[in-house]
């Protein structure tokens, strides 16, 4: 019986095990090897040791620029997105009529595929005729040239990411619905106002959701590709080029497979370090119901 059960376990999980070996572990090992070679896809790979990593980390100014751009974009868009979605979720969680309708309206932009929203934002952010600058002009603001300016191109991409803020709202709202009403009633009896209720009940109870969004958002923003590829092409003057678009250029435009693999590994290490940092810090601010806080 036990043997048969074990056998069936291995049969049932075999799709994942095979997939893991063929599409994850195997490629990772091969990629590590490739990162130590010089390879143009057509001639045999030439082993060059850690030369790719040395070039990448010490000589390649564009690579460091892409790292900086990715962090700039990732952190600011994640922070603003989290703050905005928290604010919106608090409003939508009020027991008022019509909240479902507002929720749906605000969510719709999040269903738009990135390719479509990227193409749309090219039009929206056009310097003179674009909707955004015409809107700003209503308030007498002379809108910036957005995608044409090295300074404004990253804020432009951040603005675009904020359009999809409804996606995060849904998760937070689901979390808020799970907070027992008694908590708020008890707090209200003790005289806590809405700001205090938010600070001492909503926020701690939501911290696991916020944490989950943070980890996923962090890894996601490190992988930003489509927006950059379609909206800016990385320009002007590489001001919006990010790590993955640069990796893509190296691999599939310039056929520098070895160098691109080295970029992939550095990206992986960055993702690991960040995830580890977030997890380490989580004890300090994520509150789980099952735990009793030591004071």
């Amino acid at each position: 019986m036990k043997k048969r059960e074990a056998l069936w376990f291995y049969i049932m999980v075999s799709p994942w095990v095979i997939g893991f070996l063929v599409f994850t572990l195997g490629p990772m090992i091969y990629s590590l090897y490739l990162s130590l070679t010089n390879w143009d896809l057509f001639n045999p790979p030439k082993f060059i040791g850690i030369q790719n990593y040395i070039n990448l980390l010490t000589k390649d100014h564009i690579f460091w620029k892409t790292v900086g751009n990715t962090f700039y974009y990732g952190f600011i868009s994640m922070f603003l997105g989290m703050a905005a979605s928290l604010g919106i979720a608090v409003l939508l969680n009020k027991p008022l009529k019509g909240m479902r309708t507002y929720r749906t309206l605000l969510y719709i932009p999040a269903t738009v595929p990135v390719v479509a929203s990227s193409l749309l934002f090219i039009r929206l952010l056009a310097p003179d005729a674009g909707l955004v600058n015409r809107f700003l002009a209503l308030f007498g603001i002379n809108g910036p040239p957005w995608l044409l300016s090295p300074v404004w191109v990253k804020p432009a991409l951040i603005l675009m990411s904020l359009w999809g803020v409804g996606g995060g709202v849904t998760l937070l709202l689901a979390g808020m619905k799970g907070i027992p009403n008694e908590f708020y009633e008890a707090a209200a009896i003790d005289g806590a106002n809405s700001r205090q209720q938010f600070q001492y009940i909503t926020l701690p109870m939501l911290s696991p959701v916020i944490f989950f969004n943070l980890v996923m958002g962090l890894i996601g923003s490190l992988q930003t590709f489509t927006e950059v590829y379609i909206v800016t092409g990385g320009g002007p003057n590489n001001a919006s080029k990010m790590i993955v678009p640069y990796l893509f250029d190296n691999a599939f435009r310039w056929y520098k497979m070895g160098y691109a693999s080295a970029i992939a590994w550095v990206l992986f290490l960055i993702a690991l370090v960040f995830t580890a940092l977030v997890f380490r810090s989580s004890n300090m601010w994520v509150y789980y119901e099952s735990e009793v806080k030591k004071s």
Partner: protein
Amino acid sequence: MNLNIRLPEKITTYAILTALSALLGAPLLYVFSIALASDESTYLAKFTLIPHEFHFENFIRIFQLDLNFSRFFLNSLTLVIFAMIGQIISSSMVAYGFARLRAPGKNFLFIVLLSTMMIPGEVTMIPSFILFRYLGWINTLLPLIVPNFFTNAFNVFLLRQFISRIPAELDEAAQIDGLGFFGIYSRIILPLIKPALIAIGIFTFTWNWGWFMGPLIYINDFNKAPLALGVQILSATSTSSQVPPWNMVMVGSMLLTLPMLLVYFFGQKYMDEFGVIGGSSAIK
């Protein structure tokens, strides 16, 4: 929450939400307006927020372009349907194994599974490309479809949570009635997790429908492109005037967005259930 909301608070709440909805909704109206614009307005880039031209024939013209949009649409549909089938079958099998069956090495395998969630897909991108190129799968949908038959960690994790909530007595009763492990999976577990399987299907749909990078890497032949790539190709193919045909591009974007909206409206109740799981309890 405070159940007696005072009038000023009510008014500010509605005011803020209405302003936000208008702000986030305006771009959608703009898409519609551009999609309905004439070729002349497009050439001059004269677009208005409120539509002032109504060329509804643009929605038919999109299917008569040199780029075959009905083909793009069918390619996307093929990709998404096979991806959903693959994910539903494989992730339910694997999740059942991890949730219910005991075997040496199981915990180790599960930790490996969880840790693969942290690996960005880009790390395996180049070797995968080389593998699929070696297999002669370039310019086919296979590199985009086949990996779905080998699950992903996220789906397994969610389904395992769901299966774990089913009382184990059910399995034992079925076992006494003479059902084997596969019988328990196919006749007891699968029918009980149907809502979760639908949710997995929806996730897979939304991940694959608008996917751009995969098709961009594997497909150079315009006839094989899924819709997301097709719309981008249309925007990048400059006409004689060197201006993208924005009205057609926006029609294409709407075509790309519509199925996502439909899935959102019809799948919302399944997603809500998983929103809670994915959002909070899953990581405990």
